[in-house]
């Protein structure tokens, strides 16, 4: 039986093979060039970032022993052997954890309320004034590009140590981040209801209230819940710069080598974050479900 594969004559095959080889060679050359660039960048950055592999592998034992010590009490027993001793500061930590959650909540809520009003001014399809739109966009950009902790550091100077500085820093960052997302939501709405309301002679605010808002609200809430999740994590480290929350006790425990306290607080944070993640994702799915039923 003849083979189904067609064999071209040698003369016809040679130029095809040559061009194939050339194509492969040029791709190889291209990849090599990219690799060389990456290797050069790695070399340069390693010098700049003071990478010291000898130190890393020499001290890697410190990392494992650090983790090991995290889970041992001062008397050498495993932490879970004596939960009461491990969580000796439970009352204080729970209060601080509650404060952290409140900070995340207030920061998210204030930021979301601000972003809610800015979004309609910043969305290209409904913005009342072009110059105002540009101004609001730049403002939101500034708010979200400057890191939250930098705001917190400056607010600590102005408002003193404590959660107030942290909440305001978080609110400003949330305002910037949500302002952008909300504006994008508004830009994606169906314009017909808005036109319908405007056609009846309604003012801009009424057109927004009855034409745009009903289409956007569930997305707004969904994004705010996502942001709340992020802010819970962020609130936990606000205390590092003195801006309230459980971070204050955490950084003290880390700096003073109270190992079992570090693991106790970290565990509380990890569990809280996991619970909040689950709850908010449940709420978001409910919300999406409600949206689809209408």
């Amino acid at each position, binding site marked *: 039986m003849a083979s189904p594969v067609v064999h071209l004559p040698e003369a016809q095959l040679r130029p095809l093979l040559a061009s194939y080889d050339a194509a492969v060679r040029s791709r190889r050359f291209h990849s090599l060039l990219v690799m060389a660039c990456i290797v050069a960048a790695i070399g340069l950055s390693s010098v700049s970032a*003071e990478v010291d592999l000898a130190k890393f592998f020499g001290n890697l034992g410190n990392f494992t022993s650090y983790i090991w010590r995290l889970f041992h009490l001062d008397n050498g027993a495993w932490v879970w052997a004596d939960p009461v001793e491990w969580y000796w500061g439970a009352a204080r930590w729970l209060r601080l954890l509650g404060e952290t959650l*409140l900070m995340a909540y207030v920061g998210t809520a204030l930021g979301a309320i601000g972003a809610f009003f800015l979004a309609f001014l910043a969305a290209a399809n409904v913005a009342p004034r072009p110059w105002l739109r540009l101004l609001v966009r730049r403002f939101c950009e500034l708010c979200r590009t400057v890191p939250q902790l930098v705001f917190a550091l400056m607010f600590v100077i102005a408002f003193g140590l404590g959660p107030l500085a942290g909440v305001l820093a978080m609110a400003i960052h949330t305002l910037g981040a949500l302002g952008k997302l909300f504006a994008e939501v508004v830009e994606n709405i169906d314009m017909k209801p808005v036109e319908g309301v405007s056609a009846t002679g309604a003012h801009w605010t009424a057109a927004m209230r009855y034409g745009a808002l009903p289409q956007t609200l569930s997305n707004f809430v969904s994004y705010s819940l996502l942001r709340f999740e992020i802010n819970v*994590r962020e609130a936990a480290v606000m205390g590092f710069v003195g801006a309230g929350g459980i971070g204050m006790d955490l950084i003290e425990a880390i700096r003073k080598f109270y190992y079992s306290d570090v693991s106790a607080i970290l565990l509380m944070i*990890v569990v809280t974050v996991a619970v909040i*993640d689950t709850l908010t994702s449940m709420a978001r799915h409910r919300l999406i479900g409600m949206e689809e039923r209408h």
Partner: protein
Amino acid sequence: MAGRMKVDTAAIRSRHPHYFGPPARDRQVLMLAGAAAVILLVAAMAELGFFGAKLIGGIDKLGDIAVLMMPPSPGDWAHVRLYLLSLMETIAISFLGTLLAAVIALPIALLAARNVTVQRVLRFFTRRSLDIIRSVDILIWALIWINVVGLGPFAGVLAIMTSDIGNFGKLFSEAIEAVDRKPREGIVASGGGAVLGIRFGILPEVFPVLASQVLYFFESNTRSATIIGIVGAGGIGLHLAEAIRTLELQQVSFIILLILVAVAAIDVVSNQLRFALIGRRARLA
């Protein structure tokens, strides 16, 4: 003809009782939840000290600070050099941290992907570990690594690496789970082993997606790298925190401006690279 139409309200009411009756249960629940949220907000604000002299006084001081920050100025040329060097250090930290994380996260992601790792227990533990790594903030990782390799940018590299292993592990495994399984089946059917199936059946398909995620994180890590200096893990954050604490406010605004410009530049470059890798249209996906 243009006269007003007589509206028979009663008839409409009887035809559409839904619109005239009391609000539906859904709506009542929503309103109750909204009211609860507002009450909680006000109570929380009171608890956190919003309704006191502290807020008014603080806003007053904040105005002073804003005035003192203008115009941005580095002080002298020695400072400009210092800041530019530490800005480069920041970018180096972010670059190395992201790259290391990507290299380490790839095999972990294979372990966490449903279509590669059949072993359910192994997959479960891989995923939970990634979750735990992700829920610890980058600053905490920085503090832990400082204990291992000492103060300095190397601790920052390791912190970004650790926290991104968690992020990449999750994102990569999702990308791997979304691949078409036919190329891999073809390779296995023609006698290739599991490793060859992954190398030629999965990696070529996911590589552009992974690379674009890495580039995206490179940009966001540059932002993170600016703040890990606050706890002593290298980069420009060290100088920023120092300038804020010593109230050198014009330098503060100069450094912030420098960071904004650097982040914007990296944003542009990484977007260009991403488009080159995955094509402009994939941005919408």
